[in-house]
């Protein structure tokens, strides 16, 4: 069985003169929760639409489970479940009827199976209500129920928590984790919410202006390049002076009751040893590099992506990077 669930090959989409997606090559492996990141308008939804054949690529191809969509679209997509952007159902029909129709396009689904999945997402007691009476969060959960109903091997979720309240976001994230953990579903999670990807994704790709900036493991990517560490100590002012007089001088500043030091995470133990050796009481060393700082640095060009040119991980993919 192929380890690669999704591969986009030099995927390109032009709308008249505007390039929405530019030679994008990414790869999602079996078992991944793959974060697909980018600012609004970066080309995430267009890419997803091409993966699902809602839109047709101008150039390039998509392979699902090793099958080209150009040659075996129906067989490949039969293993895929997706919620693209805001879930849209037939508002005048009940949730059960919506699942019966949309989940039964390939093969009939029993009422019992539908009710099981509605139960799973917490909508069983509203199963017979028209979907137009549902809140946005309930629609999102119904979208997930539809995915669960299809028993896919690969689920594509496009901004699944957008517009939800914190409780709703937490519930949806739990459902996504369960989908991966309990049912072994590989997931592509598109989002512009960086902490969301940081929370649940194992690997990720960042695109900007239709181009792939970087792809790789979330931890590996966050572990590379400059970052910051908040050092909490008994004598922050003295620590600041100590750091500035060191050779080479360390960029640092006071922040609250600690000192923020520019330092890559792998050098934290070394700093700790030096501080203890110099007689400081180190109460805490808190890495402050987040996906958000990484993402913003990357997008704004303050940080270069890792140099290994592979869409599988740890490097730049796509023709133009």
């Amino acid at each position, binding site marked *: 069985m192929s380890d690669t669930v999704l591969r986009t090959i030099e995927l390109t989409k032009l709308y008249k003169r505007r390039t929405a997606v530019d030679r994008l090559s990414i790869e999602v492996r079996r078992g991944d929760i793959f974060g697909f990141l980018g600012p609004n308008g970066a080309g995430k939804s267009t890419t997803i*639409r091409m993966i*699902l*054949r*809602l*839109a*047709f690529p101008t150039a390039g191809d998509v392979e699902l489970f090793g099958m080209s969509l150009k040659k075996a*679209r*129906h*067989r490949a*997509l*039969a293993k*895929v479940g*997706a*919620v*693209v*952007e*805001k*879930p*849209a*159902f*037939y*508002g*005048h*029909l009940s949730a059960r*009827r919506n699942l019966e*129709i*949309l*989940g*039964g*396009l*390939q093969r*009939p689904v029993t009422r019992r199976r539908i009710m099981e999945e509605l139960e799973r997402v917490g909508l069983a007691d509203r199963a017979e209500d028209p979907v137009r009476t549902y809140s946005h969060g309930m629609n999102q959960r119904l*979208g997930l129920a*539809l995915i669960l109903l*299809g028993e896919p091997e690969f689920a594509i979720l496009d901004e699944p928590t957008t517009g939800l309240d914190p409780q709703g976001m937490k519930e949806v994230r739990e459902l996504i984790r369960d989908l991966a953990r309990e049912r072994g579903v590989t997931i592509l999670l598109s989002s512009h919410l960086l902490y969301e990807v940081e929370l649940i994704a194992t690997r990720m790709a960042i695109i900007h202006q239709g181009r792939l900036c970087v792809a790789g493991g979330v931890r590996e990517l966050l572990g590379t390049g400059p970052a910051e560490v908040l050092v909490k100590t008994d004598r922050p002012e003295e620590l600041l002076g100590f750091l500035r007089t060191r050779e080479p001088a360390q960029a640092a500043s006071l922040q609250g009751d600690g000192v923020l030091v520019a330092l890559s995470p792998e050098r934290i133990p070394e700093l700790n040893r030096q501080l203890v050796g110099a007689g400081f009481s180190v109460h805490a060393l808190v890495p402050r590099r987040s996906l958000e700082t990484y993402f913003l640095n990357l997008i704004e060009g303050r940080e270069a992506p890792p140099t290994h040119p592979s869409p599988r991980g740890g490097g730049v993919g796509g023709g133009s990077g």
Partner: protein
Amino acid sequence: MTRLVWFELIKTFTRWRTYIGFVAFCLIVPLIVAGLKLGGQRSFERRLLSLLQNDFVIGGNVLNGWFFGFFFMGALWVHIPVVLTIVAGDQLAGEGNAGTFRFLLTHAVSRTRIVTAKFVVTLIYTAAMVLFIGGLTLGLSLWAFGSGDLLVIRRGILVIPEQQLAFHFLAAYGLATLAMFVVSALCFFFSALTDNPIGPIIATMAVIIVSILIISLPFELFQKIRPLLFVNYFDAWQKVFDDPIPWAAIRRNAAILTGFIAAFFLMALAVFTRKDILS
């Protein structure tokens, strides 16, 4: 395919807008029948007698239910398209507008099958509407004005015996349904072009109104393009009330109307199977 058609039937016939046409005609037709019963029939009679009494002896119940059933068919065929487009125009554009294609088209069902299922349901709705209007107008007219032979004033005067009328009307409703299929197919094609369900309704009605104008005006240029317009063949249903019935001409008209239906469907299919779903 049967399941897809069934799902499309559920979606279509559980929407209130599907019944707008049925409700509208349920209000309009009894109103007109009541108007005829309360004096309108006499006005018809006076006009008819002024036309015929010099040459014919009129006896019996001439202005009967069959006569008004025939009258309704002639009067309403330009109004029926309006209600047909409400559903036909919504079939593809409505789903695009609502965003439901994002689910519908990602579940490994070919677009061709989905478009075909939607088209079949559009035709079912069209047939249901035409036959409902036919049944309603004829049923109410027969109830209000009784039965009798049918007097047809069309290229002369023809009296069709009462016992033959059921066949004539059935054939006429069949041909009227075929003509209305063309209207629905055109609107369905327009529906494939857009995500706004109002657009196909306006476009279809515009095409019909302009076409009727063209075939009505006796300009030489218009007469030349007349055979290219589908409305030119809409009167096929009236031919079954001729004597003898011109079956060859009816078959030709029916074949041309079928050709238009097929062409509009194939054009819708060609557009939709290549369309980017962006809504």
